[in-house]
């Protein structure tokens, strides 16, 4: 990311205030002011909108905001991104067609909107599908549009299985696919394991990656059969497993994070199974410990959640091994 200039820093502050006060008019004013001053759209998106949005997520994580407050602030960021989109749609189309989508179960629509906007600013003729796109709908658009590129945003580990479906749909039609988002972590390991054509850490690198995509790609290789079979079984029994964990985990229900924590834990196991990358498991343990600490609960409950899950997953050999070797026995605060 480029160093922020002074007006951009001021803008970031003003934009964050607009999100915190849910003041759409003020947020639009900041974004439109920057664009009018010639700040490139992708810089506005990356250094102002996306940066501020990360803090929105952090405020929920720290327990400062409810989910509704987080969503209200996000809606303001969405409105601001739409303003940037209106601006970039006036620029000429100089490249091919790009389809931008969120995997099914991915409800964070903003990152995909930002990527859509950044690609449009770079001259792509983009089509944006909204939050949680079912694979059938994606397939329909792939055939109807015949895009030169597909970009998929995935922030939730639980959406990685359908992201893999998207990779299959795209590469079966020979269409290259660039993926990105928090669920992929800080490098291309998971993207590569799932068979994506390219991985991007942020909007500018997504723009760069899209420029370098090959015209036609080969069908993605199948994933290891035992791991995918076990992940599919876990997915089928997800509600039941989550219910059992909820019943045994000792965290005070008033803390109100059990559902998120348990879902995330199971999803981390899915991710590790599909990608062979175990990092989501200890990271999820740490994330839960942070949530607990921020809400004045005992962070060591994160450790016991792993132990409960290990017991529940005794009939899932790969997952059991993953958990018993990667879920931390103690969490640093």
């Amino acid at each position, binding site marked *: 990311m480029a160093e922020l200039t002074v007006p951009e820093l001021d803008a970031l502050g003003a934009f964050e205030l607009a999100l*915190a*006060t*849910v*003041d*759409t*008019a003020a947020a639009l004013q900041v974004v439109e002011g920057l664009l009018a001053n010639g700040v490139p759209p992708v810089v506005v998106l990356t250094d102002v909108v996306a940066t501020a949005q990360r803090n929105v997520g952090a405020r929920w994580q720290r327990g400062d905001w*409810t*989910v*509704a*407050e987080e*969503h*209200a602030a996000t*809606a*303001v960021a969405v*409105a601001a991104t739409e303003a940037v989109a209106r601006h970039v749609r006036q620029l000429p189309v100089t490249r*091919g067609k790009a389809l931008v989508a969120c995997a099914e179960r991915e*409800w964070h629509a903003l990152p995909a909107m930002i990527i859509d906007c950044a690609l449009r600013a770079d001259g792509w003729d983009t089509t944006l599908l909204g*939050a*949680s796109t*079912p694979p*059938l*709908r994606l*397939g*329909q658009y*792939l*055939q*109807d*549009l*015949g895009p030169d590129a597909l970009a998929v945003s995935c922030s939730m580990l639980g959406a990685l299985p359908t992201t893999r479906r998207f990779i299959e749909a795209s590469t*079966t*039609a*020979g*269409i290259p696919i*660039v993926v*990105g988002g928090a669920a992929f972590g800080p*490098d*291309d390991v998971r*993207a*590569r394991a799932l068979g*994506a*054509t*390219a*991985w*991007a*850490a*942020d909007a*500018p*690198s*997504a723009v*760069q*990656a899209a420029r*370098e*995509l*090959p*015209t*036609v*790609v*080969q*069908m993605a290789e199948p994933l290891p059969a035992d791991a995918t079979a076990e992940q599919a079984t876990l997915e089928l029994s997800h*509600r039941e497993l989550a219910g059992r964990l909820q019943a045994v985990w000792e965290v005070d229900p008033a803390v109100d994070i059990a559902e998120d924590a348990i879902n995330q834990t199971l999803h981390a196991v899915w991710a590790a199974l599909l990608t062979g990358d175990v990092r989501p498991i200890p990271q999820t343990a740490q994330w839960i410990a942070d949530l607990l600490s921020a809400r004045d609960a005992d962070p060591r409950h994160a450790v016991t959640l792993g132990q409960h899950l290990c017991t529940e997953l005794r009939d899932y050999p790969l997952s059991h091994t993953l958990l018993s070797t990667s879920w931390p026995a103690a969490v640093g605060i």
Partner: protein
Amino acid sequence: MTSGGTIPDDVRNPLLADSAAVRAEIVDEVGLAMTGSLNLRRCVLQLLTGVKPDIADWAVVVWVNPRTGGLTLWGGDDPSATAKTSRRSIAGQALERVLVTGHTELLHVALEDPASDALATMIPNAGLREQAAALRPVDVLGLGLTARGVTLGALVMVRGQGRGFSEQDVAVGEQLAARASLALDSARLYEQTSRVAAALKESLVPPELPAIPGLDIAARYRPAIEHLDIGGDFYDVFTSGDEWLAVLGDVCGKGVDAAVLTGRARQSIRTAAHFEREPGALLAAFNTVFSQDTSNRFITLVCLRMRPAADGSSAEVDIAVAGHAGPVLVRADGRTEQLPIEGTVAGVVPRVDYPTTTVRLEQGDALLVFTDGVEEARGESGFYGTDRLIRLLREYAGAGADAMCGAVEQDVVEHLDGRAHDDIAVLAISCGGTLGWQS
């Protein structure tokens, strides 16, 4: 790799391509890859990238437009390049013979003159001819692309110096052309149908919402057949005179048939609104027209007339309902209730009176209207239900129309957990946007 980039692929060993068995395998590979796409252009790209480098060093696909007879030339050095030319430009040329008869033509290029007759008679574009000549080819091979009894185009291939097409190579090329033609023809048929569908769909997808001064407005739509993008639910927001109207409705049925009816309903309401903007009277007029028009179809509707104060501090909303769930009123302070407004479903009885109820929204208050796909969404624990909707919306008091609609959509879809559902439509209006909601 620190911030992203293309993940490298294994490179095919070029030495392998010398064996005829391997070439036959490539024919299978290219054929399979092409059947993965129903998009004509993508299909052509699969073919053009698949033939290089094993079967040809350079290739173009010539495609005939059946309506105009004009030719599109795809490929060359860059597989994604396109050029156009007229049918007249190939009169009497070898390419025309291939296109008319579907028969293979193998022409030898005179070594001393690479831009010779052979290239000229097969490649009707100067730039492409130069590209081919630069390879100093010995032969140029023209193959008909014939599927289901029609020659749709031609595949023209060139190989560089010293790599002429043997008899066996021509046979492999013909096999490839036969496989490719079927895939291309399927893609052509699909594209034709999908173009018709897209043109019709255009008028039936939910409209973009207008910006209304003093009001914040948002919507979500998930059709039962999600990949169709259209269904039996609809909404519309428009201005008539100096007032704003919003309607949300549900035609009985799902899919394309229902969607066609929503298009007519939307048009009828817009037309009726020129003469009648009071929601009760508007629904009465619509009902009369609609019940005459369609003997056996009915429709549920909720209609809102919105009169916001210019500064966004308040808004008067008049509401009438035809056989539809009443709106949920979410006050900025969290008080949430479903308004007990009722009226007869439209399209059944020719003359019905609809009462109009008025509510006053203060800054941060919101109204949410929804179709029965919301409350009747069936999850593991039963129907989603209105109570759950009201509990959810209470948490979103003052959060703004978009956050509310997004929350309802996500909660309902998560409740469904992958189960089939009816069309789901949600529309929210919030007074004065969200200004000043939080400290």
